[in-house]
């Protein structure tokens, strides 16, 4: 299997692995949210991704836009809260940007992901350092883009993104929250990893798993 493109089946596998990871780590995510939020991020993501994967299995997607628009809509209509619309928009924009293809090459996936991030920002208005999922998505995509600039290998790019994602996630610990529920805590939000940042890191872990070794 070439690592220069990613097929709809592989992208489906990505989403399935993401579902598996948030399900596996449901209590970890909820614990993070109970420290600075309302203790539902784990169950929100598990419920949402569970619904996404169930729908895909019931009627598998033929094209990339079908897959991600479906996933985005399902998240939007099954999660609620802040993460539902944010992750939902992220996937929706990936879908609309990718269009009715059956696979994506590295620049194609990079562009789609960047559009997804644009959707998150359009919705949530988060900036760097606000202690949100943005603080993982943004450095991860920057690393992905940089890797794609020098190589067409998706696996390499995914590894680079995941590494940056982990760093971004851990860096949220020191931040003072300025968006979402955690911002009500002011100073008291410092010292805790942001739950949305943690789930977003899992998204890149899942991509690495899907694409396999470099």
């Amino acid at each position: 299997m070439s690592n220069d493109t990613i097929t709809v089946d592989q992208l489906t596998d990505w989403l399935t692995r993401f579902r598996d990871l948030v399900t596996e780590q449901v209590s970890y995510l909820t614990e993070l949210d109970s420290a600075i939020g309302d203790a539902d991020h784990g169950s929100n993501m598990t419920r949402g991704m569970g619904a996404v994967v169930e729908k895909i299995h019931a009627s598998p997607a033929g094209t990339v836009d079908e897959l991600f628009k479906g996933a985005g809509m399902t998240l939007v209509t099954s999660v609620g809260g802040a993460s539902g619309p944010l992750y939902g928009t992220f996937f929706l924009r990936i879908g609309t940007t990718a269009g009715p293809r059956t696979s994506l090459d590295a620049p194609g996936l990079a562009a789609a992901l960047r559009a997804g991030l644009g959707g998150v920002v359009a919705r949530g208005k988060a900036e760097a350092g606000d202690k949100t999922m943005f603080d993982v998505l943004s450095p991860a995509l920057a690393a992905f883009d940089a890797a794609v600039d020098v190589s067409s290998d998706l696996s390499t790019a995914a590894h680079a993104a995941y590494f940056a994602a982990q760093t971004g996630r851990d860096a949220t610990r020191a931040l003072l929250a300025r968006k979402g529920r955690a911002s009500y805590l002011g100073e008291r939000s410092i010292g805790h990893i942001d739950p949305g940042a943690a789930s977003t890191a899992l998204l890149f872990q899942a991509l690495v798993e899907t694409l396999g070794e470099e």
Partner: protein
Amino acid sequence: MKKLVNDPKNVVNEAVAGFGAAHADLVRVSADPIFIVRKDAPVAGKVGIVSGGGSGHEPMHGGFVGPGMLDAAVPGPVFTSPTPDPILAATKAVDGGAGVLHIVKNYTGDVLNFETAADLAAADGVEVRSVLVNDDVAVKDSLYTAGRRGVAGTVLVEKIAGAAADRGDDLESVALVAERVIGQVRSMGVALTPCVVPHAGQPSFTLAEDEIEIGIGIHGEPGRERIKLEPADAIVDRLLGPILDDIPFVAGDKVLLLVNGMGGTPQVELYIVFRRAAEVLAERGIEVTRTLVGNFTTSLEMQGMSITVLKLDDELTTLWDAPVQTAALRWGR
């Protein structure tokens, strides 16, 4: 946790079904997606008003559906914003051709889900305006937070916007009057005991037997400080200070004073609080011309209360006094 529930997963749909059965003279309920509309919705030519948010704050918002107030309420799961689809369905169900106002409490989840619903409604040809209620002075309003939370002041926004729509104002005007109320209403609350979300089964936070949380949010979010229990009058003074200093409210102002129970506090206590709050306002030369006391924006069985002060002018007073006919607020018909 002891609660009068069956399966915790069914709390909202069973309660909404019960609400529909109990108030069939006022409302119709949709079971899937879950929303509540006034019985005669849509009212042709009238601006429709929709509010909603997580459940657990009853009577807000379902108890305010009816002539003179909301056209629809969209209850999400307990303490969780509804998704856009029921909001969209409710918006369409109450559009009488004059557009729809969304009254949204300022929580990221609520904001985003209502926003999405508004986009989708617009795509379907329904004109939608949104206002964000953010009356809670316990949380600093700054560029560096999600902003102040929306709490019991929401009831006053809904009543007054409802009256404006009822007298035939257009969408722009109804939104403006709602914004005006939002600009002039401030609240702050206190918790004596925590609430228990049914599917969580655990108290949302813990307070020692002699501790109270000043500035509590309506989902049990932390407030300004945790202090030792004090006499009611001292607690009232702690809440009223930041409220009155915020806008600020000054001598000569006419205001509406709302003492709101959090769900588990007996009425005698709310009136003891009201007595002191009215006293403080009088001392400051602020005239209380309208009052409301009771459980309106609750936090399940939490013991505690919030105080809300709204600066009134002649128009807002007239709109407040206008007839309203809902399960939880009713006068004039």
